[in-house]
């Protein structure tokens, strides 16, 4: 008892102290509070360094994607998320596939990565000595695997039309439906000796059936089969492409397909391009073609430069030498194409 008494006394005094102490207010009384100065805005973060003049000039275009890089989804696939390195989706060919302008490449168009779906639109104009070419098309890319494309080409014969007896300004029209499947390899990654390899088809339908048959073509539609190998040889900043095309198309199909006694033939498309920067590339292409109609159809050559203005917008300019078309020789000129890809 003698020990516990002081203990209890201590306890009581503690409790008493606690009880007698002023109640602690854990909040500020509101009613009679002095007006509180509004919090001073934190200092603005330092302005980002001014971008280079080119980037500044193109800044409005960078946001041109209404869909943005945000995650739209279609089932399990990410829609228009992008992710490809600049220019690795190639540029649109005259036939709507991804490639180098005239030659088809093994690349898959659109900016999507595996697990994503992308798309691109393009418009191309070729001004030749006597003819004018306009084409436009759309392409859908599925992962790094599949590319589906459609392109419409209008080939204006201008004054030469009268000379050819089909009427001045007569335009040949061609629809091309393309599909391309990547079989193996990667354009950028993996061993330098292992290119990206793809097989594909291009089904083409001339809209001038009666006329092309009259010119001697056996059919108004035909299907090309292609096998392509393309590789970016980083050590040399070179892109190399080789494509084999099994075709019977006359002038890509504008003048129909085949002729009496002339069927499918194997032809070659080659491209060699040098990367000047991650945005710019210059190169040359060669494409061999059949001459089923005996109109002196020539192999095609181009010298091209492509520039990725933004992640989405690529422009291609080229000098093309298409030789003789429908017996009219010297068809050289300029090629200009714009591609928007997501």
């Amino acid at each position: 008892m003698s020990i516990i008494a002081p203990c209890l006394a201590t306890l009581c005094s503690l409790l008493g102290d606690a009880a007698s102490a002023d109640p602690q207010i854990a909040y500020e009384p509101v009613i009679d509070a002095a007006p509180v100065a509004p919090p001073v805005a934190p200092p603005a973060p330092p302005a980002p360094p001014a971008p280079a003049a080119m980037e500044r000039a193109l800044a409005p275009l960078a946001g041109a994607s209404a869909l943005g890089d945000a995650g739209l989804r279609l089932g399990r696939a990410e829609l228009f998320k992008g992710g490809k390195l600049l220019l690795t989706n190639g540029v649109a060919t005259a036939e709507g596939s991804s490639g180098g302008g005239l030659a088809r490449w093994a690349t898959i168009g659109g900016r999507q990565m595996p697990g994503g779906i992308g798309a691109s639109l393009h418009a191309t104009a070729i001004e030749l000595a006597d003819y004018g070419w306009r084409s436009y098309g759309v392409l859908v890319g599925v992962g790094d695997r599949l590319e589906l494309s459609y392109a419409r080409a209008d080939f204006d014969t201008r004054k030469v039309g009268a000379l050819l007896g089909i009427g001045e300004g007569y335009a040949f029209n061609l629809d091309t439906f393309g599909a391309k499947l990547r079989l193996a390899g990667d354009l950028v990654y993996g061993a330098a000796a292992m290119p990206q390899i793809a097989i594909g088809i291009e089904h083409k339908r001339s809209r001038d059936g009666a006329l092309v048959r009259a010119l001697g073509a056996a059919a108004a539609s035909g299907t090309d089969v292609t096998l392509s190998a393309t590789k970016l040889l980083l050590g040399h900043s070179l892109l190399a492409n080789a494509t084999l095309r099994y075709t019977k198309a006359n002038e890509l199909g504008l003048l129909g397909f085949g002729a009496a006694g002339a069927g499918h033939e194997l032809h070659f498309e080659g491209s060699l391009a040098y990367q000047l920067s991650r945005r710019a590339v210059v190169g040359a292409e060669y494409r061999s073609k059949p001459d089923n109609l005996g109109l002196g159809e020539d192999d095609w050559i181009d010298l091209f430069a492509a520039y990725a203005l933004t992640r989405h917008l690529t422009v291609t300019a080229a000098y093309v030498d298409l030789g003789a078309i429908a017996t009219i020789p010297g068809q050289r000129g300029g090629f200009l194409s714009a591609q928007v890809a997501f």
Partner: protein
Amino acid sequence: MLLATAAAALMLLQQAPAEGTDWDAEFGIEAKVRDPLTGEFPVAPYQQSNANAGALPYASPALVAAFGGREGILRIAARTVELSEADPRIAAIFASHDMVRLKRTLGEQLCYLIGAGCDYTGRDMRSVHADMGLTKADLNALVENLQAAMREAGVPFAAQNRLLAKLAPMAREVVTR
């Protein structure tokens, strides 16, 4: 009576734990401690070899000069990591890893590959990236950051590509999904 007294005394002596108690120590959790000298976390022992760098080096003094020598390439490596840590596409991948060590080992690797006279002391590409679940899109983002760092350092594009040529084949070991 004595028992009651002891119990009461104990009750009175009971105190709240002191502020700043090291609970990890209380519960016997061993915290990884950065090496005071290098600032890196310890790693499980492994065989060190330049072969872990994943490719053979160039032997071109001109190429080394294009990268600004040894100091230049080490700065580029550190800058690449810095840009990647701030890159919303891939920052999360770096968040849980030892950035001090990565800056050093990536610097050694790039320096070794361009032939600037470093030895690579890190682990091989396959085991380092085994559990990261990296995609080709992640790799593209890193390549863009490396390109940006090289561009900032004024490395000519062809020289940039020569370094990328050494790294590109390693994608097979790095990309796991």
